[in-house]
């Protein structure tokens, strides 16, 4: 019957739209990341190392970068920045170090999550090396110094004179593949004790 097949056609099309919108819900996850990369909306930084392109260093300007270290709920590590504030010229390569120690009685794998404020500054913070790119394991009682190497893009807007980088350490032991097999490259040779 004409009407019936017309109805079924239409239902079919509407079901397709429904499924597409369900997919769109999930597509919002990568779309959101892209959107954040472009606008710096949530202050996320690059997740893999960039290559230092040796841009011209703008010695006429100074930008202060502040570092804040935090551990998330349930994460017992001691975590501190050896340099809490550094003044840099845009374009110049700098290295800062972070101290960690695992005082707990178990081995723990950590993941550091950076967040930059104001969020737009995140677009101009380029990290060539960072402990936050990988999981960081420490056995019970171990300590380490973890480096972070970065430069500030000379394109950074003039009104940004200071920005804050926060690292939060999360305990990701449960989701790390095998905590034993991961070696911490920054381990400071001997254990704390």
């Amino acid at each position, binding site marked *: 019957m004409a009407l019936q097949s017309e109805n079924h056609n239409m239902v079919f099309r509407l079901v397709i739209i429904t499924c597409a919108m369900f997919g769109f819900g999930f597509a919002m996850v990568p779309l959101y990341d892209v959107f954040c990369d472009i606008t710096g909306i*949530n*202050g996320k930084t690059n997740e893999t190392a960039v290559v230092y392109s040796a841009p011209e260093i703008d010695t006429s300007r100074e930008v202060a970068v*502040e570092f*804040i270290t*935090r*551990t*998330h*709920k*349930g*994460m*017992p590590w001691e975590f501190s920045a050896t340099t809490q504030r550094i003044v840099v010229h845009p374009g110049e390569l700098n290295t800062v170090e972070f101290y960690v120690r*695992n*005082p*707990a*009685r178990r081995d723990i794998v950590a993941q550091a*999550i950076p*967040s*930059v*404020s*104001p969020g737009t500054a995140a677009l101009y913070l380029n990290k060539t090396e960072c402990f936050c790119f990988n999981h960081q394991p420490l056995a*019970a*009682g171990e300590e380490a110094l973890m480096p972070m190497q970065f430069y500030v893009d000379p394109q950074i807007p003039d*009104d*940004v*004179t*200071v920005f*804050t980088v*926060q690292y*939060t350490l*999360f*305990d990701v*032991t*449960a989701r790390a593949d095998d905590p034993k097999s991961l070696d911490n490259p920054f381990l400071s040779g001997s254990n*704390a*004790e």
Partner: protein
Amino acid sequence: MRRLAKSALTACMMMSSGVYAEAQQAVSDINLRPGVTDISSQVYDLHMMMFAICVGIAVLVFGVMFISMYLHRKSRGVKPANFHENVKVEIAWTVVPFIILIVMAIPAAKTLIAMEDTSAPDMTVLVTGSQWKWHYKYMDSDVEYYSLLATRREEIENKYDKRDNYLLEVDRPLVIPTGQKVRFLITSDDVIHSWWVPDFAVKKDANPGFINEAWTRVNEPGIYRGQCAELCGKDHGFMPIVVIAKEPAEYAQWVSEQEEMRALAREEEQRLLAMNMDMSELMAEGERVYNAVCAGCHMPNGEGLPGVFPAIKGSNLALNDMPGHIDIVLNGKTGTAMQAFGNMLSLKELAAVVTYQRNAWGNNTGDVVQPKDVNAIAKGE
């Protein structure tokens, strides 16, 4: 018609400016407060402008409607007209509201841009929310502490009379200087919270793992109270914010006092490590600490909330595994609401609360935990 509209609007403006004058005297009960910063008073003005415009629109629309309801009733013998469109009128009432909107948007955008400009602060405070308290860390000096609800449980349970600042009082308020640009970096340890002080017109979400910024410059010394504004679990209603604004000189004095206190506290810790405290002292201190920081989840009777927060009464950890017990109090447990108290409580308080948990509510283990036992586990020995 237009003249009528205009005069109606002016009348409303006048009415609401009457409200305005009154509201500034009696801050409080029915209106937004002008607050104590330039921004907050701009926000208040925007609010009053919006209110006036809205009242104006409402009076106009409802006025026409009620006049029509009076005049054009069937019981008055009115025969209905039959018009059903008028392009000119329809365009007019699309365009005019549009223009009003633009007029409203411009000052709002200006204020907004000023609010979001966190550059060049005089000082910075890191504000961290967690279930259900705030932590303040002064980035420019060695001062940091937790700020907890100070209202007594008996008041909440209606056993004692409620004091004046019921639910709006904390043990250690945030202290900031007046006349200086104070930047707040806001983040969270667990779920989303929101740091709100109405008098500053500052409300910013604390997102776990992410950092947000806000700022204020307080004009008048005083005590300003706010609350967490984002549902953050069971005791969302019980994590107030109190900020004391002091003159810069007084503030500087307060900071040096705080730094001194911290140094003293550290010495005291060292001294404690060599001492043994007795059971009754630990139990008394432990009960105080337990009721202040643990009872929110594990309940005053130690039974927790089944399915949400585990019981301590009769639990294996509290009856047998003492190092494990100290460890979980110190370091918390990942993926649960159990947080690390190692940074929040002193060694003495930690020792006391663990002792209390191991001996209260029929957990009669007889164990006495000393500050040095806690220290040993904290140092990973």
